[in-house]
């Protein structure tokens, strides 16, 4: 079973306690009525669908209940890092360096 580190519980716990919640760092337009249909479509539906390290959201559903962010390699399923939602987006090159 996949083990996931929850940055709020500060514990590494079984995947079954967590739910996946899509790509991370997608900001909702501050003023939705001023954006074009294409921009709104992109916000709602268009995702990067990365093959490799992917910035994504997870929720510790059967635990603290919190959403948090993670970088997971979509090929190997390996988590490079998990971090709190208000933490800055970590630099990928540094994560890859660290995981070697």
């Amino acid at each position: 079973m996949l083990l996931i580190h929850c940055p709020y519980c500060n514990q590494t716990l079984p995947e079954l306690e967590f739910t996946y919640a899509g790509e991370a760092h997608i900001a909702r337009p501050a003023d939705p009525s001023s954006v074009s249909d294409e921009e709104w479509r992109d916000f709602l539906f268009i995702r990067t669908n990365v093959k490799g390290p992917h910035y994504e959201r997870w929720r510790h559903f059967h635990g603290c209940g919190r959403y948090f962010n993670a970088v997971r390699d979509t090929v190997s399923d390996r988590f490079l890092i998990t971090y709190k939602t208000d933490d800055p987006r970590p630099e990928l090159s540094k994560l890859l360096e660290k995981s070697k």
Partner: protein
Amino acid sequence: MTVLTHAFTPGPIVASGQVKLTLMAPVARFSLRLRAANIPAVSKAIGVDLATTVGARAANGTTESICLGPDEWLIIAKPDDTETVTNACADVYASATHSLTEVSAREVTVRIEGERASELLTIGCPRDIDSIPVGGGCRTVIDGVTVVLWRDAEQSFRMDIWRSFALHIIDLLCTGCKEFAAE
């Protein structure tokens, strides 16, 4: 082995063997949400020093608390103390904003104890039970159902289960007890 119904009459469910299951008497339950700055004021009001580490517990007499998330606690008290807790929190609300919701009827609690109690939990709980310290607890999952687990002693646990899932989970635990007995 007792057949349990939705009446949830407290008493023994599995009375003998390596693990005993008991449906516990009703308690007052509260869901408490608040920001870090207001922890001291609310702790003082309810008379329990709220812990700030997820999974950590604190108690004062029969009033108990467990930290379930960075801004979330579960408070347990005697049914007679329901109003005391509610009023104490209401009194500090103006200066220490929080949300206190009484959820007493939401869950039932099962005591799981005996030499193989921790092993029994592995029938549906993916968390490493050994990682839960005595005197600690956690919200976790068992067979797809969210529960709160309190570890009171090495081999004595309480499990708070939402009523509508309780018969299913208790049935599962009974099955585990039967498996132990059949070994």
